[in-house]
């Protein structure tokens, strides 16, 4: 077990390095002098050309590509991500400010969708071909077919514009920062984000449960005289969980990267809108650093998937050794 985990974690290192190399190469295509995003803009404005040259020397910008890459990597490890070309703010502070907002929406949406998706899928599978299963199947199909921003627009036009129950966008009213004051801002983005995921999870839960329920060990469990609920939950759901967990963990990077489209619909100040603004303002250092973080989050999520699957299914753990 420990050996398996260690192997997985070691495999991660070259992949992380490849990501940083890709991002570094991308950074080289940013037009202009790298010095502009490596030190704060108000520092630059105070420097005369000679001092600027000295600064370049000190930052290692006159060295060859390989040395530059390792200097840059070292800075990253120290949390020095550079500065925005547009606002001049440090990228780290921008991320620190935006991350909690995205995190909030994503975690709520993930929890809602996990709860609803699992429940609906479970009911559908245990009552296969019933009216409720048919209803769920159609709803699930609609859930994965309608674009999430369309749900967003519908939500805004009904609940904000027509009924006036919920705000149409933003994160909070000025001065009112408590979670209870912000809750009304979270309802629509979280629900819109959750709908598609509920549908996906429901479909997978149903499929996976049906697969498992036709296995021999379910027959064995029934023939032992276990109650139907016991068979479904302890023997069925537990074994059906792996593919479902995989999908759920796959969405975890959203916590970091934000949901670009939904954040944009609701004008929500998270990582997604930060990325969008950076792109429309050609603020490439911000774009590259954010992308890198998201890619790394995806790698970590895939590691997590392997570890959880191994915990849930001993065959994976011992299969390849």
């Amino acid at each position, binding site marked *: 077990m420990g050996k398996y985990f260690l192997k997985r974690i070691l495999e991660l290192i070259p*992949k992380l390095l*490849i*990501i940083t190399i*890709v991002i570094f190469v*991308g950074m080289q*295509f940013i037009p202009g002098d790298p010095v502009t995003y490596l030190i704060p803009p108000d520092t630059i404005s105070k420097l005369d050309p000679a001092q600027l040259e000295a600064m370049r020397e000190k930052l290692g910008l006159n060295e060859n590509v390989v040395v530059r890459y390792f200097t840059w990597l070292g800075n990253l490890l120290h949390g020095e991500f550079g500065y925005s070309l547009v606002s001049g703010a440090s990228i780290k502070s921008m991320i620190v400010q935006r991350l909690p907002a995205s995190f909030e929406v994503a975690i709520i949406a993930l929890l809602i969708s996990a709860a609803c998706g699992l429940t609906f899928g479970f009911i559908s599978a245990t009552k296969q071909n019933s009216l409720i299963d048919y209803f769920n199947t159609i709803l699930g*199909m*609609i859930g*994965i*077919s*309608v*674009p*999430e*921003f*369309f749900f967003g*627009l519908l939500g*805004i*036009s009904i609940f904000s*514009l027509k009924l006036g129950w919920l705000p*149409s966008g933003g994160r909070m009213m000025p001065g009112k920062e408590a979670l209870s004051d912000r809750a009304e801002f979270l309802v629509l983005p979280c629900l819109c984000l959750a709908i598609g995921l509920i549908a996906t999870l429901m479909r997978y839960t149903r499929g996976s449960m049906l697969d498992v329920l036709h296995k021999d060990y379910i027959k064995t469990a029934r023939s032992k005289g276990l109650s139907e609920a016991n068979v479904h939950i302890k023997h069925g759901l537990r074994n059906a969980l792996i593919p479902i967990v995989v999908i759920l963990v796959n969405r975890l*990077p959203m916590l970091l*990267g934000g949901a*670009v*489209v939904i954040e*944009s619909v609701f004008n929500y100040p998270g990582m997604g809108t930060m*990325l*969008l603004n*950076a*792109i*429309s303002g*050609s603020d*490439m250092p911000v*774009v*590259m650093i954010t*992308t890198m973080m*998201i*890619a790394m989050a*995806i*790698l970590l999520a*895939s590691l997590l998937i392997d570890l959880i699957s191994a915990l849930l299914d001993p065959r994976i753990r011992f299969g390849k050794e």
Partner: protein
Amino acid sequence: MRQKTHRSSLARRNLQKLFSNRLAILGGVIVLALVLLSIFAPLLTPYDPAFIDPTQRLQPPSAEHLLGTDNAGRDLWARILYGGRLSITIGLVSSLSAAALGVIAGCISGYFGGKVDAVLLYISEIFSTFPQTILILIIVGFAGRSTLNMVLIFSITGWMGTHRIVRSRIISLREEAFVESCVACGIGSSSIMFRHLLPNTVGPVVVSITLSTAGYVLSESGLSFIGLGVPPEVPTWGNIINAAKSLDIMQNHPALWLAPGVAIALFVLGVNFLGDGLRDVFDTTQ
């Protein structure tokens, strides 16, 4: 001869299976209808989707303008018909080229195995860590918006699914006797891969092409909606909604975003129903 009759009966059985699936039929009809509507767009509307008529801004639906006009005075019905052409083409071309890449990589991976396979698997894993949306965002940041860029990105980042399907299928087929007899007859590797092994993977590949077409139409609409998809002057369904983002239009002229939204949802729903039906047909385990 005997093999031929066997084949046609299998095809007939598959078709029967597909036609007995009501949802798949419904999906097929929806998709066909939307495709025909966009192909015959010039016959169905006299308007040019790009023609700007400042005197006709934000007209309500009428006999003259079936769905009304947008804030630039363009006929909405015409824009949706012509928009379908682009949205559907982008989705289909992207999924076809992604599948082509995946099939080639999958054949090579599965047939040669070993180191070649390991390298291709590694590459596909690296590709899956950069999410499509983010890659498109970067390319748009560097190169600007273009329809071709979008299709290219979709194909370059979308081949991994097909790769996996074809690879695992070919690995299991590789040991069959007919491959051995091919090798014994001196048939070359590429011919064995693409002529003898590949046809056996058609089913799952067709299913994945269908479903990913739906996925790409959705992604395109989302990206265009946030203003990062195809250039704004190209009337795709997503771009039409993007033009209707202001609160005023949302409240007072709902047709402008409802109509293209329904078009996207209907098309994707239809393709998904069809894809699910096809999967049932090709799924031999049932």
